[in-house]
């Protein structure tokens, strides 16, 4: 759906939610329940947590719909509430095992040259048989990222939002989003590189 149509649809919905019109909540859920649940799953990685978070998100949306200012798009407001709710839940939870992203950044000599040889694994990756396993590995590596990077990666590369949209939802600047996204990708590249090299050695 083109952005302008989505915007119009949202605006009408917003008005009806504010008035408490019949069917408005059902429509809100029809449009956003699946998306919000999926986003919550990507961050929380647990179905019952994601269900509770989704419930909290929509309770917040219904309660606060009167305070929504309309200076950002409605969906980005809902996404933001979702990210906030999920991060709050994560904080209350024992921290899962996350990796130190610094350990996966490329290393350079003092002259700024690559300090170790860069392995070309593009051919291995293109081999079809590897695809499913590779997908699993990418998922696993992503889940090991700390939330700071994972949330940006999830919104931009999994949800497919633009850097501008992600920035708005997270209340960050576009350059800050880009820099986190870039680091997440550098990390993933390095993880894939190590993983594929191990496979070669076997």
């Amino acid at each position, binding site marked *: 759906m083109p952005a302008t149509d989505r915007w119009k649809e949202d605006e009408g919905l917003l008005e009806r939610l504010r008035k408490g019109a019949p069917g408005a909540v059902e429509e809100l859920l029809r449009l956003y329940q*699946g998306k919000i649940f999926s986003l919550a799953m990507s961050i929380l990685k647990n179905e019952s947590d994601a269900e509770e978070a989704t*419930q909290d998100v929509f309770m917040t949306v219904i309660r606060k719909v009167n305070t929504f200012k309309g200076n950002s798009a409605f969906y980005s407001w809902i996404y933001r509430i979702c990210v906030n709710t999920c991060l709050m839940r994560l904080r209350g939870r024992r921290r899962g095992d996350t990796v130190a992203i610094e350990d996966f950044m490329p290393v350079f000599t003092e002259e700024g040259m690559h300090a170790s040889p860069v392995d070309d694994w593009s051919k291995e990756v293109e081999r079809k048989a590897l695809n499913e396993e590779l*997908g699993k590995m990418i998922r696993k590596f992503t889940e090991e990222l700390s939330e700071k990077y994972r949330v940006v990666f999830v919104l931009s590369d999994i949800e497919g939002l633009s850097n501008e949209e992600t920035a708005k939802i997270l209340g960050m600047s576009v350059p800050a989003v880009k820099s986190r996204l870039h680091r997440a990708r550098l990390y993933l590249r390095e993880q894939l590189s190590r993983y594929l090299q191990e496979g070669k050695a076997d």
Partner: protein
Amino acid sequence: MNCKELAYLLADYLDGSMDPRIRAELDEHIARCKACMIFAKTYRLTCRKAAELRGDIHYEIPDEVQERLTAFLVSAARKFPGQMDDYRRQAERECEEKVLAFCRAAVEGKLSSMAAIMMDGHIAVCPKCREYFVVLRSAHADLCLPPREILEHVVRLLESLPPGEEFFLV
């Protein structure tokens, strides 16, 4: 341009937002540096593989979850119109408490570094807030809720902090 600089410019290089002159420099480096050629190639491939997973990683909401949520939320919302004013008042109260806590932290120098930077940025361009906080800091007066206009600016500042980030030092 060296390999290190190139590695940190790759995202701009790939999304096309790069200045053409820098792009030319990058192309030139890649043409004569095999390590960077491979690095750029595998970086691009990483992005592509992650994007291919997009549909895959999408978590479907199970039917029973959907039914449960819908039933709960629709009935919660039905009780809602009567409670609207309560909620609104409660939201307002929470907001005012937060603004007050922010002012206190600002006066006592206990803002988080992120909040302090944003605050400095704001008062640099907003004379009203600058004046208000200068007086507040010097007067050692009892803290009370700032006037509407300043309150709104503080609220906007609080809203633009990254999610999950507290505005005070812990």
